[in-house]
């Protein structure tokens, strides 16, 4: 009995000695096993979160930002590298940490319960010691695994940062190219309703109508972005086709719809000013009708740039053609009549014609709201000779009674001074601008024998001078860089437009890239 005990003790000592001798090998093996399990766990969880190979396991996308613009958010899904990638990574890491913790607890409890717990007797010493070594290997393996995972995470984060930097570089490069092309083509966009310059239009989603205020490459997409409705990919640049979407003014207090394909052509602003009832709307309509009619005869092609312009002209043309009076222009801030002019060589210009109610020119406070004047380089002043006192007082009573409803309310000199003062106050130098003066209603004057003697600019200027508008004539000559007088009727008799209109049109577009020639 005693001999057996001694034998057992000796055996235990030998085993312990062997264990001590091979401790690094055994514990290292256990540690390697657990480290490998940690890494396997890491990749399994990471693949699950990313939906590899099964997309159903992927983390659901972030909630789509609501339509809030004050905080700069857009109604679109963010680009993967601008949020979702970081969330995937943090989500994977937190799951890995939780699973590693629970696996460590389970493994250690299992090893302890199976191998270590219980009586320490000579015949169980070996098993107990092996259990302890295994737990040691588990701790060591988990530590090694954690260290490897920290390294792997650092690699992953660095990778995400590098990808982000690459995406940002591409983003800025694309924005730069697009801006450079706009500058090169001298394309400046302005709102036809609030008149403010627009650095880049906002666009509406064709499916849900959500307004994307800054669609350019950025955190919501580089080449395209996904609208919050999840039905539509939207191109991020004019270069990439965003001009095919509905463009809007990006200013939150306006959001007016811009011209179709806004940003694809240089804009020409042509303001028409004159007193109330001077014949501005009629003249503008006849100008556009002349352009449209001449298109078939090899002139410029005309294309209405928005639905409003198209609808308004469809209403105006029958009225003008029938020789009826147009409705009074509303006194609200005018929206431009916009149309594209394309020359035979393919040069396109977006023309904004502003027909403003005459009442707006009588009051400086209301006039200074007409900020579109700032962008104009050619102006059209509609002068109603019936509003000139000297001419009016020379007419017989019966003629005056007949013409009274057609007469503009304020003198042309007053309207011109008002506009000039405000244009100068806006910082514009009239010396760099051109002014066409259209003397309207000359068919009425001819009927009563008081029309100008000649139709050329000098004759009209002299005629106005003799009518007592010498101050106006001098002021016009001294303030504007280039001036030309025209006499127009803007009242097509028998369907033929007055010959003054083509001449006026030709002069107004003469220094533009889309010059117009009256068909022979």
């Amino acid at each position, binding site marked *: 009995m005693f001999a057996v005990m001694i034998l057992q003790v000796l055996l235990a000592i030998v085993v312990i000695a062997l264990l001590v001798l091979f401790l690094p090998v055994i514990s290292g093996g256990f540690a390697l096993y657990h480290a490998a399990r940690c890494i396997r766990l890491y990749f399994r969880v990471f693949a699950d979160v*990313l939906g*590899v190979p099964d997309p159903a396991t*992927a983390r659901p*996308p972030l909630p789509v930002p609501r339509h809030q613009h004050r905080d700069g958010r857009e109604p679109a899904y963010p680009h993967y590298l601008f949020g*979702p990638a970081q969330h995937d990574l943090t989500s994977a890491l937190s799951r890995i940490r939780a699973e590693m913790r629970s696996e460590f607890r389970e493994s250690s409890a299992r090893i302890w319960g199976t191998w270590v717990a219980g009586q320490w007797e000579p015949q169980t010493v070996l098993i107990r010691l092996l259990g302890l070594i295994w737990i040691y290997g588990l701790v060591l393996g988990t530590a090694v695994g954690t260290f490897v995972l920290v390294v792997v995470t650092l*690699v992953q984060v660095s*990778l995400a940062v590098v990808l982000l930097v690459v995406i940002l570089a591409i983003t800025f490069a694309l924005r730069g190219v697009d801006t450079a092309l706009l500058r090169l083509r001298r394309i400046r966009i302005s709102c036809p309703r609030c008149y403010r310059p627009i650095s880049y239009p906002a666009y509406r989603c064709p499916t849900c109508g959500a307004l994307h205020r800054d669609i350019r490459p950025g955190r919501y997409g580089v080449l395209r972005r996904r609208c919050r409705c*999840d039905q539509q990919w939207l191109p991020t640049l004019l270069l990439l086709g965003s001009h095919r979407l509905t463009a809007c003014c990006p200013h939150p207090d306006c959001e007016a719809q811009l011209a179709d394909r806004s940003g694809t052509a240089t804009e020409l602003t042509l303001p028409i000013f004159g007193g109330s009832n001077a014949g501005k709307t009629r003249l503008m309509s006849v100008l556009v009708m002349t352009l449209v009619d001449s298109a078939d005869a090899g002139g410029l092609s005309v294309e209405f740039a928005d639905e409003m312009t198209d609808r308004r002209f469809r209403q105006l043309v029958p009225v003008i053609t029938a020789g009826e009076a147009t409705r009074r222009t509303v006194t609200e801030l005018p929206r431009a009549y916009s149309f594209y002019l394309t020359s035979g060589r393919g040069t396109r210009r977006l023309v904004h014609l502003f027909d403003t109610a005459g009442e707006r020119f009588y009051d400086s406070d209301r006039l200074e709201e007409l900020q579109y004047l700032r962008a104009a380089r050619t102006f059209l002043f509609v002068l109603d000779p019936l509003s000139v006192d000297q001419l009016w007082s020379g007419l017989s009573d019966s003629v005056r009674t007949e013409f009274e409803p057609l007469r503009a309310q304020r003198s042309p000199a007053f309207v011109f001074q008002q506009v000039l003062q405000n244009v100068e106050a806006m910082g514009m130098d009239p010396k760099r601008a051109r002014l066409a003066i259209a003397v309207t209603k000359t068919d009425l004057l001819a009927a009563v024998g008081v029309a100008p003697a000649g139709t050329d600019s000098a004759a009209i200027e002299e005629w106005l001078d003799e009518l007592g508008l010498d101050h106006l004539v001098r002021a016009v000559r001294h303030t504007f860089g280039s001036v030309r007088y025209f006499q127009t009727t803007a009242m097509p008799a028998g369907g033929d437009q007055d010959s003054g209109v083509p001449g006026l049109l030709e002069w107004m577009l003469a220094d533009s890239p889309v010059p117009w020639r009256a068909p022979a």
Partner: protein
Amino acid sequence: VDLYRPWRLAYFVVTVIAVVTVVGAVLLFALSLR
């Protein structure tokens, strides 16, 4: 349909390649030291 699937696949593949490359480089460096 997962909107980010192409990016997630690419990110996973690139990560695996990067990790294998880094671990391989470290092992090669350790072996070269011996």
